[in-house]
């Protein structure tokens, strides 16, 4: 049941009505309904994996309490590592086992040793990377005494399995979401309206921008051998907007629908393509994951407090792990590694926190410089996206090599029966709308909201791609 499906368009209003009119007596009834809805939502993907979600929830709930109650340090450590081990064990088994087994076999083959690895015939449970990280952050925070363990199982279950964020985030923190869950929500008209606007904007990003860009990006990436330089460059740009529209669109819909239930989720995207350097990009792209790795990996490793080599090591570790989090493929690791390389000069020059504020343009040299930096950062991120999108690292290298060696910058007719340049107007229009609204979460609210709403709805209806249906990319992670 995708957010952009007809089934979800029925499901959401039913849950909304039940939530505010039938189960609105207290926070327990509200939470109970949301858990039932969330488990139903999850079982629509594959009911067999529901046990995994329930088990993971119960494990972290129980170990959290045991960590808090343990008198001795050894006991705390036991329960802590049990939770970490089991959580990462499940993630490793479902997501990474086959990758490691076949990579090991390939390595052995390189040494002349033939081996036929035992591979698991399992599908990746949807959302496992996300709810595992929810649970991990909770247990780690209890272990380091940042939060108290949650004794109410209903409240804790909702924190882990709340349907708007269950399958593709944002990756929530117990410190942020649990306090919201623990009080009865009262209906807030303005928040609900904002939620609707954000959902509509998210849907527009998905069906108009991402899915349309996907048809072009796929046609170019799948046939890159026969593409000229211009098509290859445009392919990377289209993919950049595809993945942005897809994932930030999903996040907007998740945040928006959550507002309908009176719950605020963590913001996941903040106009990343308007970043002036790669450090700023990572503060604006998939914020909940970046901050997760910062708080639970980078800082525990010493962060930027150690010597130069420690900083460099830590930077590479978090980018490589972040890449690997996305999927069991060397292309994701390479993508992470490239971003680490981009980050390195900023780290060495201690300029990685130079661009914190929102870009403000004026008629001066600084503004020209800012635009130049934005374009450069976007170009660098597009280059890295080629590795993210390509099937293998060799394909990505070959793709980039062909941009340089082909040298033809002419229009080209693609496999999707369209010209390579055709989508540029729509992409540019989208950029202009986002630029003019970069201080807000979505562009619909504010002045003339009814007119803007009508334009967005018309765009969704008329310009959306529906027949060439695309799933959300991040569901596979």
């Amino acid at each position: 049941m995708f957010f952009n499906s007809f089934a979800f368009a029925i499901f959401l209003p039913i849950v909304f009505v039940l939530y505010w009119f039938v189960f609105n007596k207290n926070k327990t009834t509200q939470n109970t309904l949301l858990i039932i809805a969330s488990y139903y939502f999850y079982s629509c993907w594959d009911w067999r994996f529901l046990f995994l979600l329930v088990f993971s929830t119960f494990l972290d709930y129980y170990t959290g309490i045991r960590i808090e109650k343990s008198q001795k340090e050894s006991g705390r450590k036991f329960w802590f590592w049990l939770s970490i081990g089991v959580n990462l064990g499940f993630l490793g088994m479902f997501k990474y086992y086959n990758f490691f087994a076949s990579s090991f076999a390939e390595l052995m083959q390189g040494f002349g040793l033939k081996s036929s690895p035992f591979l698991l015939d399992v599908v990746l449970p949807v959302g496992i990377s996300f709810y595992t990280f929810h649970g991990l952050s909770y247990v780690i925070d209890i272990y380091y005494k940042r939060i108290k363990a949650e004794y109410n199982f209903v409240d804790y279950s909702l924190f882990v399995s709340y349907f708007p964020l269950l399958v593709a985030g944002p990756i929530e923190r117990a410190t942020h979401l649990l306090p919201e869950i623990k009080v009865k929500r009262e209906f807030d008209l303005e928040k609900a309206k904002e939620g609707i606007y954000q959902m509509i904007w998210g849907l527009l990003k998905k069906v108009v921008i991402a899915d349309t860009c996907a048809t072009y990006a796929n046609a170019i990436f799948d046939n890159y051998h026969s593409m000229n330089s211009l098509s290859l460059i445009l392919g990377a740009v289209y993919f950049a907007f595809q993945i942005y529209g897809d994932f930030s669109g999903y996040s907007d819909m998740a945040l928006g629908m959550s507002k309908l239930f009176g719950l605020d989720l963590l913001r996941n995207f903040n106009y990343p393509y308007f970043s002036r350097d790669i450090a700023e990009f990572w503060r604006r792209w998939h914020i909940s994951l970046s901050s997760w790795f910062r708080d639970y990996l980078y800082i525990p490793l010493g962060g930027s407090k150690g010597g130069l080599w420690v900083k460099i090591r830590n930077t590479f570790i978090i980018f490589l792990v972040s890449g690997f989090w996305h999927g069991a493929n060397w292309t994701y690791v390479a993508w992470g590694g490239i971003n680490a390389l981009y980050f390195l000069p900023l780290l060495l020059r201690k300029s990685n926190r130079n661009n914190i504020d929102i870009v403000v343009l004026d008629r001066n040299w600084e503004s020209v410089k800012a635009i130049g930096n934005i374009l450069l950062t976007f170009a660098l991120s597009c280059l890295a996206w080629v590795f993210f999108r390509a099937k293998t690292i060799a394909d990505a290298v070959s793709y980039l090599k062909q941009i340089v060696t082909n040298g033809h910058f002419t229009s080209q007719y693609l496999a999707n029966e369209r010209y390579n340049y055709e989508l540029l107007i729509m992409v540019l229009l989208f950029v202009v709308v986002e630029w003019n609204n970069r201080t807000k979460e979505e562009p619909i609210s504010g002045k003339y909201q009814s007119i803007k709403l009508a334009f967005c709805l018309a765009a969704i209806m008329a310009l959306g791609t529906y027949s060439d249906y695309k799933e959300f990319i991040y569901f596979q992670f």
Partner: protein
Amino acid sequence: MKQFLGFTIKTIIIIVVLAIILDYCYTSVYLQSNNRNKIEYVYNSKSRNYDVVILGSSRANNHFVTEMFEQKGLKTFNYGMSGGHLFEADLMLKLMLERNYKIKTVILEADLNLSNDKRSETVAAKFLPYIHDSEIIKKHFLNEADFNYLYYLPFYRYVNFDGLIGFREFYKTLSRQPTNVLDKGGYHALGNKKGNMKNNIRALKPLKNKYYEEIKSICVANKINFIAVMTPMCENTKGIDYFDKVKKAYPEIHNYENVVVEDKFFSSCGHMNNAGARIFTARIINDFFTE
């Protein structure tokens, strides 16, 4: 909550009004066009006279060389449509007759398409802009599972088939960008392809196809000479006995499957190239139109 209910109703009203406006705009544009595909070429036309009308799928579209019929003095148009099934061929014939076309002979390519009496998703959608304007099209779609959505939900058909009749096609129609579909009397010549030809049609079974039967009876009722033919497949086709099964089920269908066999005359296993199509067409003309 009352205010939110009002807001929700307002949003729904905006959606409905937009859907009606967009539906009206798209439909109006498609009703003006007659040069982008064979369906609108028929739909937005008045009476035409033909000696020969060719109907069927791509195996009609790519196999019957209109020019060769014309050279024989036969006014001909190839209305075969790539990806089309007999559902669409039947509807095309009904629309032609509604527009008072005078047709002497219908040649129907009836072979692989007999195994399917469902609509073609890629071709049938092109009739949908006219579903409110034409009683014939409405009736033809009446038994389709999604008829109520297609007919009663404004703009649904343009959203559901956006790749075929959505914004892109609307824009091209509005800006009167022509296609080459109507060139060469509707015949589309294929070039040569490299590599070995092969196909497997073992899974296909000829049905008692209701649209085939309907085409046949329409021709009888309108005194149109009806010729149904099977057209060639490449040599390396597994399950080629399918054509014998068709002959058994429908003895009146002429089996021309093995008129052209060599790979050099094929573009793909199920589609002859221009050279193959010319050999095949010459044989058809010789057998049916030479006194």
